[in-house]
């Protein structure tokens, strides 16, 4: 068995020729090591850093493709080396800070995401619970084993949501099944602003970010094509996302799997709401008297800034936060393009949960250092992981989504209707009286129910 595996080639596709060049373009300046969020909490494992991963890939490739291999024949891949390389490669949150600081301009996220499918094909990857993703998504079309028919079970009865139209809100699986407060807040705000919008309902399939991030691309094409077609069929011209992971996938990954014309624009909800704030359409009623900081989600920030610009990626959410009365805002030391990842991305939460937890605790510590009371964000997965980190660190810091902050301050009713997934809700929520909002924690009532706690 081991012999069969070691005879399998290192590469079976996926990596572009220019990416192989990028591996050799690493000049070992070590800059990535200073910023890598996983190395920061695992300083005894330099192998997880980009510089070492590139070096290891070069060594593994050299076994079959060096001058020595050409003259004397290839060497088989050593199982222990491959196991170590796989562990190192999957101990990466694909946050992309290494690419931001890379002196050689290597597009690291794309590189790691192209290496991983080769490891999957060889049978080395994925790791931990990540292997459940294809089965879950292939069967249920979401990672929570939830029913597609119940995608909109959280929408309040009096809310107005269309089935088609030019503007769509793509909620994502987590807002639909696990952080419904975010979905309710979004719907309430859009209704309050008299914005006509539609949702796909049961036709909304998981964005499949987890598959791309972990190198399991088989089901990916189905999900990308289905969602794009569904949005096109619904007449979408603009699609709003309140989930950073879904947004990244819809904006960057889906189009790579779709051959036809895509007629709609993808937009972070924060950008849309900022426009409304600037036009004076957003009316706040209740101040939020807390010290806030903002955690830039990688998917909504670094990954998106080249496509949508730094203003959309970094400034729009900050503008939304600072528009709310009572808010005292301060950035963490590491912010915007150089922000520290929460640790949940790249499948790490599902694959290497203790690493994700340590990263989250480091990020919570970043917020603690500036005496923040609340970490705001625009990514349900960052929020989930930061809550776990906060709980482990026994920190009093709260986590909320910007949309929920706005809805609370606007005095909107964000009560989640009772539904089959109420018992799985686990989030900090804003409980508002007529003159004041207080942050409260809703404990998960059925812990450990999720097979895969983290998809992105």
């Amino acid at each position, binding site marked *: 068995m081991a012999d069969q595996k070691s005879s399998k080639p290192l590469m079976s596709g996926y990596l*572009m020729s*220019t990416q192989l060049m990028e591996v*050799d*373009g690493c000049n070992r300046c070590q*800059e990535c090591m200073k910023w890598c969020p996983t190395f920061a909490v695992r300083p005894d494992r330099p192998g997880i850093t980009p510089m070492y991963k590139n070096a290891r890939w070069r060594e593994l490739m050299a076994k079959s493709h*060096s001058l020595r291999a050409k003259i004397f024949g290839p060497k088989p891949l050593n199982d222990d080396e491959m196991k170590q390389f796989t562990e190192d490669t999957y101990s990466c949150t694909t946050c992309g800070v290494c*690419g931001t600081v890379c002196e050689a301009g290597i*597009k690291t996220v794309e590189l790691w995401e192209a290496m991983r499918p080769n490891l999957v094909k060889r049978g080395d990857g994925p790791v931990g619970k990540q292997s459940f993703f294809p089965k879950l998504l292939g069967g249920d079309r979401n990672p929570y084993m939830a029913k597609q028919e119940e995608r909109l079970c959280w929408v309040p009865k009096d809310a107005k949501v269309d089935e088609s139209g030019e503007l769509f809100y793509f909620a994502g699986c987590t807002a639909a099944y696990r952080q419904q407060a975010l979905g309710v807040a979004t719907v309430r705000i859009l209704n309050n602003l008299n914005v006509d919008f539609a949702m796909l309902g049961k036709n909304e399939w998981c964005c499949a970010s987890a598959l791309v991030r972990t190198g399991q691309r088989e089901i990916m094409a189905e999900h990308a094509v289905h969602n794009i077609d569904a949005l096109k069929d619904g007449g979408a011209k603009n699609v709003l996302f309140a989930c950073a992971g879904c947004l990244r996938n819809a904006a960057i990954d889906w189009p790579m799997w779709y051959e036809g014309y895509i007629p709609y624009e993808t937009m972070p909800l924060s950008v849309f709401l900022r426009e409304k704030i600037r036009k004076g359409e957003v009316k706040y009623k209740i101040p939020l008297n807390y010290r806030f900081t903002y955690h830039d989600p990688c998917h909504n920030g670094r990954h998106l800034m080249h496509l949508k610009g730094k203003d959309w990626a970094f400034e729009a959410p900050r503008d939304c936060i600072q528009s709310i009365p009572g808010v005292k805002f301060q950035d963490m030391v590491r912010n915007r393009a150089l922000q520290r990842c929460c640790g949940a991305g790249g499948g790490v939460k599902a694959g290497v949960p203790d690493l994700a937890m340590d990263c989250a605790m480091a990020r919570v510590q970043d917020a603690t250092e500036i005496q923040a009371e609340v970490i705001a964000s625009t990514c349900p997965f960052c929020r989930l992981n930061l809550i776990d980190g906060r709980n482990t660190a026994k920190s009093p810091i709260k986590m909320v989504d910007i949309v929920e902050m706005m809805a609370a301050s606007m005095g909107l009713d964000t009560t989640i209707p009772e539904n089959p997934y109420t018992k799985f809700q686990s989030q900090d929520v804003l409980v508002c009286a007529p003159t004041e909002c207080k942050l409260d924690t809703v404990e998960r009532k059925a812990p450990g129910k999720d097979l895969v706690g983290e998809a992105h």
Partner: protein
Amino acid sequence: MAFYTLGLTFNLVIFLTVIVLAVWIYGIYFNFKKWGLGSTGYHDQLRNSFWLFLATWIHEAFKDGLWVFLRTVVLDVLLLRRTLARSPVRWVMHMSMFYGFLALAALSGLGLMLDIIEHFNLVGLAHEAEAVKEMLALPFDIFGYLLLIGATIAVSRRIFLKFVRDNSSAYDAFLIGAVFLITVTGFYAEWMRGNSFLVGNAFEYPIYAPHFALIHTVLAIGLFALVLPWSKYIHVIATPMTLLGNRGGE
């Protein structure tokens, strides 16, 4: 720098030069071919083609148009903007090594051409070629010192900075040490000839100057042709190509 000693003749040197260049060019071809194993697009099959690698790289480099390509050439490749943004010290180091190395390589090529002109008295310019060769001593010195500054910073960082030292491999040590050694031997060979711009004839020892020049040349050529294309030093080629292929990077 003359090194016609130990039985070396002009013709033999030219022959060896051709061999070295051939090895170097094959090394570059070998790497391009290796990179060409990859696909030409996202989720595509492996190709294994030297030409498809070139085509893919050109496609990527010019994806955003000629202006972006030129901007990347100037800001990212020639001025190392990304390095400056991260560490001014490393920027000085890289700029010194980059321009010192390039200029010395160019001057060496020019020196060889002048040697050929002088040897064959091409278009009757032997005398002028000799005069120009004499004039090259100053730029050789200047760019040599530039490379020395860069190499010294590189070696010092590995010695004095714990984080850098701890994450340096034997590879790093060998290659940075080799550059440092080549630079120092180049200076010493020049000093032994007794006509150095800065130290004059303080280290003059003309009998063995050609021998030392030969050692320097063999080391430099060894690094250029036998190490660069076959080691991590291929980043000298791959890094600028990556910057261009990624239109300056993220």
